[in-house]
């Protein structure tokens, strides 16, 4: 399993919670069992205490005696762990044989007659559970203290056995649950494995992802198929363009070859064909950029004022000798939905075209999603501009002068879903409006 995988994350996550839940459950059960065992043990000791009290006789002189065995033979075996003792204040009056000469420390219960349980250390240093009570004897209100004690080893062994059984059971349950989790995760992630296999297959054979996928994965598959379709369209367009370019280049190349093989090549023909080649490369480069661009700038928002300002600064230098007034009036909220490069390409071509034709003034305005570039030159009429765009689209590279820039802008606008309108400007020249 890789260092970071969904399967690993899910199994580790489930394992962590399972371990915590089982540990908490084990602790609660263990505690409950220990409580129950101790309670039962004290009940037994209480029964022995009652039996001892019943067997106890107090003489008229205050002497205390136990007239019959208390029940459990272990009270008779020295240091057996089972003891009883009857005392009067600090003096032990009578005790079980098992205590031999050892005296259990006495703790007087707060209320005479009430049972009191506590821990104590026995003659051999063993932990004892003691149940005791004070009893009023005779009419003089004298108290005797009756105590029954037994080694806790018995309940400790019982609790230990239960804890072991509990640990084994919960461990087994945990392992079983982890195996179930692993199976469930594997089953749940199987569609992703199938998807990876499909994608691997796509690398070799192409096409799209097929088959039904669960509701959680289906949108991902849909989105991947959209990207694959988009790529396929781009590749198809690229192939078409490469084909067009190759065919388009062949004619001027043939002319060049023929001309160069003649004894006296005509320089004008060579220059003309080279220009034709250059123009063709420009057209295809521009179109390739335009078509590649929309995928790059999805979701971008670019301030028109900033880019228009940069391009205006560049154009003022390019046309420095002409004294052109290039004005940019863009609202702060005028934002372009695309990449910065797309906007630079659209504005650059439109503003450059306007500068070429302007008599003295170029104006760029932008409000919200609408950008307008206009000039005061005789320039292109709206019809001529539309024709220039069509020329670019038809790749009629014999047309001299402008048109290429407008055709690139038209391509970009088409791909970005923007409108492109030509009209007569109030300044006198061409007005180009780009909008949503």
């Amino acid at each position: 399993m890789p260092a970071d995988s969904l399967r690993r994350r899910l199994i580790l996550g489930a394992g962590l919670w399972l371990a915590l839940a089982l540990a908490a459950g084990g602790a609660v059960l263990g505690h409950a069992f220990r409580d129950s065992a101790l309670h039962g043990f004290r009940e037994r000791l209480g029964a022995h205490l009652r039996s001892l009290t019943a067997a106890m006789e107090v003489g008229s002189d205050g002497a205390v005696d136990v007239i019959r065995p208390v029940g459990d033979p272990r009270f008779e075996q020295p240091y057996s762990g089972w003891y009883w003792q009857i005392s009067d204040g600090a003096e032990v009056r009578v005790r079980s044989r098992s205590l031999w000469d050892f005296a259990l420390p006495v703790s007087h219960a707060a209320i005479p007659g009430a049972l009191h349980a506590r821990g104590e250390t026995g003659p051999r240093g063993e932990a004892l559970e003691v149940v005791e009570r004070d009893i009023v004897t005779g009419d003089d209100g004298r108290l005797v203290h009756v105590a029954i004690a037994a080694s806790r080893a018995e309940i400790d062994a019982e609790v230990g056995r239960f804890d072991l059984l509990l640990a084994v059971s919960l461990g087994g349950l945990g392992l079983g649950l982890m195996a179930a989790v692993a199976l469930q995760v594997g089953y749940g992630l199987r569609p992703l494995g199938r998807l990876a296999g499909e994608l691997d297959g796509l690398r070799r054979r192409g096409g799209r992802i097929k088959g039904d996928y669960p509701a959680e994965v289906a949108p991902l598959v849909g989105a991947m198929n959209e990207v694959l379709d988009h790529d396929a369209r781009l590749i198809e367009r690229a192939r078409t363009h490469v084909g067009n370019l190759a065919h388009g280049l062949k004619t001027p190349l043939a002319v060049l070859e023929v001309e160069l093989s003649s004894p006296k090549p005509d320089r004008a023909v060579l220059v003309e064909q080279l220009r034709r080649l250059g123009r063709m490369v420009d057209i295809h480069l521009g179109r390739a950029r335009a078509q590649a661009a929309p995928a790059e700038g999805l979701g971008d928002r670019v301030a028109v004022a900033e880019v228009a300002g940069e391009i205006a600064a560049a154009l003022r230098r390019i046309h420095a000798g002409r004294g052109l007034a290039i004005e940019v009036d863009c609202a702060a909220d005028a934002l372009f939905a695309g990449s910065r490069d797309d906007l630079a390409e659209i504005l650059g071509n439109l503003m450059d075209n306007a500068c070429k034709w302007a008599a003295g003034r170029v104006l760029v305005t932008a409000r919200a999603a609408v950008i307008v570039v206009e000039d005061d030159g005789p320039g292109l009429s709206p019809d001529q501009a539309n024709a220039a765009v069509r020329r670019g689209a038809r790749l009629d590279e014999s047309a001299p002068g402008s048109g290429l820039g407008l055709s690139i802008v038209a391509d970009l606008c088409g791909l970005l879903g923007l409108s492109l309108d030509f009209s007569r400007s109030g300044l006198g020249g061409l007005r180009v409006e780009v909008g949503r």
Partner: protein
Amino acid sequence: MRVLVVEDEPQLTLRLQQALEAAGFAVDTAYDGEEGCFLGDTESYDAVVLDLGLPKLDGISVLGRWREAGRAMPVLVLTARGRWADKSAAFAAGADDYVTKPFEMDEVVTRIRALIRRAAGHASPEIVCGPVRIDTNGGRVAVDGMAVALTAQEFRILSYLAHHQGRVVGRGELVEHVYDRNADPESNVLDVLVARIRRKLKAEVIHTLRGQGWRMEPPANAG
């Protein structure tokens, strides 16, 4: 007038050099960004032709370093990168003009001339000094309407003095701007050339200021 060409394609560099020399410029060449940056920093040029895609140091960085160091010579960027994003980046870095490849040699020469003229404060391609008219685009000189034949070096000297007329041009400055960096002219060569230009022009427009250099101005202003 002295021009630096920074371009990594040797054949293109050679053609640019030939075309610019034929147009009357002294030309230095550099084939990578570091060499170009060094030359632009240490030599005096009237204009630079700069490619953007250069080995070692790209053209935008070279331009940026020159401008940071206060080197103000006009720079024509000559590159295959035709996107407006690239163009505005080049202008933001301090370019004065931008020509995309493929290009026509005449266009580059014309634009270099225009850049040099504008940098010297002349808007028109024709520079006039009294009876002398210098057509910077055509490389022609006329006195009182009569054409005068000058050699390439003579034209370079006259053109530099005319671009900076009214100001004293020292011997060192003139050498820096009319010879390429490999040339090592003898001390009196400039005197001989200036004297020859004076003879050909037959007009008192170039004045020698002993120990300082030369100043070009119309005859009426001579002092």
